[in-house]
């Protein structure tokens, strides 16, 4: 069988990849997809912990994370599409009337 440690290491790599994607890419859609990768990494670790502990709260947490991801995706993609409609670009570099 596969030791649970391996799942956690895999999830750590996936989380890092996701975080890296958010930090280095400029397209909000890709950034958002990278955030989904981060959430999935957490879910993977959660299910692994949950199965090794034989406790359900981990799996239920994953369930809620998925529900929240769905809610976020609805709002986030609406925002992205709306900005594209009004500006015809969604690149973060072009969406910068606010000077940072």
């Amino acid at each position, binding site marked *: *069988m*596969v*030791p*649970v*440690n391996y*799942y*956690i*290491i895999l999830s*750590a*790599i*996936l989380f*890092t*990849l*996701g*975080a*890296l*994607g958010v*930090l*280095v*890419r*400029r*397209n909000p*859609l*890709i950034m958002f*997809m990278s955030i*989904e*990768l981060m959430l*999935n990494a957490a*879910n*993977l670790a959660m*299910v*692994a*912990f*949950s*199965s*090794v502990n*034989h406790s*359900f709260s981990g*799996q*239920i947490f*994953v*369930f809620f994370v*998925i*529900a929240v*991801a*769905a*809610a976020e*995706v*609805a*709002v986030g*993609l*609406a*925002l*992205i*599409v*709306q900005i*594209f409609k009004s500006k015809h670009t*969604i*690149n973060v*570099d072009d969406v910068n009337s606010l000077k940072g």
Partner: protein
Amino acid sequence: MTAAQIIFLITAAVILGSAFMVVTTKNLVHAALWLIVTLFGAAVLFATLNAGFIAVVQVVIYIGAIAILFIFAVMLTRRSMTDTGPGLNRGWWLSAAIALLTFGGLVWLVSGWGGFTKAAPAYPSGFDAVAALAHALVSPEAFVLPFEVASVLLLAALVGAVYIAFQRKGEE
């Protein structure tokens, strides 16, 4: 090497490869499709961890709803289908260094810690995991409160999304 280990290694490779493609590809449609591959790989791993229900939820909601919404969003913003211009921001090397450091720390942490070197035990035969999960989800002794709050949250998100995307009269 057992079959379970081989399945794990293949799935892990697929997950990491596709996740890498999501983060690096310039084409947004490809990114969304690679995301689906990653999500599917995660579903396979959920199944190997005795979490069959979560695996199904992953496929139905994450792939069936969330990833498809992503593809819709990419299609609706079609002009930016390929990411033109510099895909990376100026401070990318700094971000990369921080992320790699974090990653090294996490891996060192997990590998140095002996708490989880055992494999996930299987459920005793005759144990209905899905029924137990369902009970936990709606039982007042367990998780009914977050369940109800999640329903209100989805309502709020729905109202918000409709407000943002709604085309008013007088707007182009």
